[in-house]
């Protein structure tokens, strides 16, 4: 009996496990940690970008949306790592709240409210796949929809903008969201999984056993 079980587990775990959608404590904590790390980057980007964004926004009609991805990635990244419904919204909101508490130029509206809208966008991305697709495509869709959330917010917020400018802004947000918040985050998740720290998660399980 010992023989056969050892054989079974020789190289890769042969037990096929069902995906569970209930949150464990570790899911919450890790999603929060990703939110924290992202929040710090959001905030750093607030500062780094204050000048470029202004210049970009000033000399091009709406292309500064391309810079938005750095505020969009928390949701898709957390979701692709912990793989639970709500992870994207949770992480993006928390990250935005943290960005806000650290103090930035946008206050509650431009950090928290927009964060929630981005989070909802990112969440819809995974919901479209019924929380079953956890791959590059779903992450990219999620990132793109986070970009939509962001673009919509600024559209509403900037009544002074013309239609052309708003549309370009929306479009560029979506593109940058899909690329950086989607594709790049999916790659990042794979790199993290390689280090082995995700061994308590489904996302970190595809490894040869030691």
């Amino acid at each position, binding site marked *: 009996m010992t023989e056969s079980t*050892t054989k079974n587990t*020789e190289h890769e775990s042969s037990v096929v496990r069902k995906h569970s959608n209930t949150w*464990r404590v570790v899911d919450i904590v890790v999603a929060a940690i990703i939110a924290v790390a992202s929040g710090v980057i959001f905030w750093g980007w607030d500062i780094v970008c204050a000048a470029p964004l202004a210049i970009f926004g000033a000399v091009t009609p709406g292309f500064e949306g391309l810079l938005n991805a750095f505020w969009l990635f928390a949701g898709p990244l957390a979701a692709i790592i912990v793989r639970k419904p709500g992870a994207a919204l949770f992480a993006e909101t928390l990250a935005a709240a943290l960005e806000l508490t650290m103090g930035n130029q946008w206050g509650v509206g431009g950090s928290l409210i927009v964060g929630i809208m981005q989070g909802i966008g990112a969440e819809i991305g995974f919901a479209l796949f019924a929380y079953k697709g956890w791959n590059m495509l779903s992450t990219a869709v999620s990132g793109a929809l986070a970009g939509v959330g962001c673009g919509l917010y600024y559209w509403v917020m900037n009544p002074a903008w013309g239609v052309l400018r708003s549309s370009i802004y929306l479009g560029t947000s979506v593109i940058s969201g899909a690329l950086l918040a989607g594709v790049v985050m999916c790659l990042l998740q794979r790199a993290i999984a390689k280090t*082995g720290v995700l*061994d308590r998660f489904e996302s970190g399980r595809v*490894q040869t*056993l*030691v």
Partner: protein
Amino acid sequence: MGVSVQARDWGWRHASRKDFALRHVSFDIEPGERVLLLGASGAGKSTLMAGLAGVLGGDDDGEQEGHLLIGGAEARTARGISGLMLQDPDAQTILERVGDDAAFGCENLGLPKDEIWQRARESLDMVGLDYMRFDHSTRKLSGGQRQRLALAGVLAMHPGLLLLDEPTANLDPEGVKEVHDAVKRVVERTGETLIVVEHHIDVWLDTVDRVIVLGKPDGDSLVGGVIADGAPSKVFGAMGDVLAAGGAWVPGRTITHCPPAGQPGETVLHADDLSFGRGFPLGEHVNIEFHAGEVTALTGRNGVGKSTLALTLAGLLKPLAGHVRMAEHLVPAHRANDVGTWKSRDLLGRVGMVFQEPEHQFVTSSVRDEIAVGPKSMGKSDEEAYRIADEMLERVNLKRFGPANPFTLSGGEKRRLSVASMLAAAPKVLVMDEPTFGQDFTTWTEMVRLIADVRDAGSAVIMVTHDEALIEALDARRIIVSEEEQHD
């Protein structure tokens, strides 16, 4: 009140491992019994403790065999009945303030507010943190203080099953006594069931009424599994030799003595009017010298500042004033003789540091790479670096974990890896913070030999330690770090 514990042919395989950490474990523990759990480093003690506390996780985390029952219910569903103090003190500080952290467990049990605070204060006093204010930041704690805090948090819960995983590994001798007394008092008063894991058996002999020994981890037939179970006198009497061979610190063992061959050589490192501390000077105007071929032990109470001093000596923490200097001929070309200002590459091969928390030191994702990093950065070829790595792994008994992730090792295995990876760079000065905690007798003896080898090869070894046996085995020079007499 205590609860009963039953293991029925229980086993666990971590998700990233192909072998079971332990298997076919069976025992029955009565309510109120006090059990000492023994076994070599890597035998699966911590895994069993986590299983009993119901925190091993579910199918995502590994594969379970058989049953673990706490008071008749599956351990996984019995969370809150048991309180576990984990082996790694660093990962257990949960909240930002000391008082809140000690109160956390009680909150989870749904106790009334006044009782929570009363228990929190009581348990902090019991573990020797009576000088600590409730609003002290948990960020600014030394390794030993963290361990005490974690213990306080668990003791305050008065769980039916008290699980302590090496509760005294980082404590000073006085702290060991304090913790022992505190635990003893608590279990005698409340009748809680106690399971404690500790390599140094002597501490708990007068408290426990039963010893359970887990088998050696390698050697297939013995994977996990209980190899001895019974009253201490019976187990040690009947099985003394087997246990000794298996690496247990059986009472009354003679330790290997490795005195230095000759007199200490030249001074290789010295502190020159040094002030050290983190933002605020702990010690000032320190002048000490460390010699080639000599082992120096820094001892002193928890939280006095040994680790801070060690980091400063290793050139990793900027001195607040003064300098740490090396012998002139060891100073790299075009650099001032001040270790703190050197480049990282200059430190390599000159000064090495083994951190108190092994995990703080890991920079790669495999055990083998971890050791090879040093030799590689020193310009050795990959082949040569891995040859050194394999040799080292063999000596510290980690060979089978070569491709494993350093973070997934057991507590004692991590410690050995962190020491081995620093030794591989063969520094002229080796600073080690608690190099031997969490080791069983066999691995401990091997560590002593390793340190002796480094010393005899002409390096200066500085070790922060609470391990008296280690100091004696190496005939180390002793420096006591102590608080000034308080003037009023």
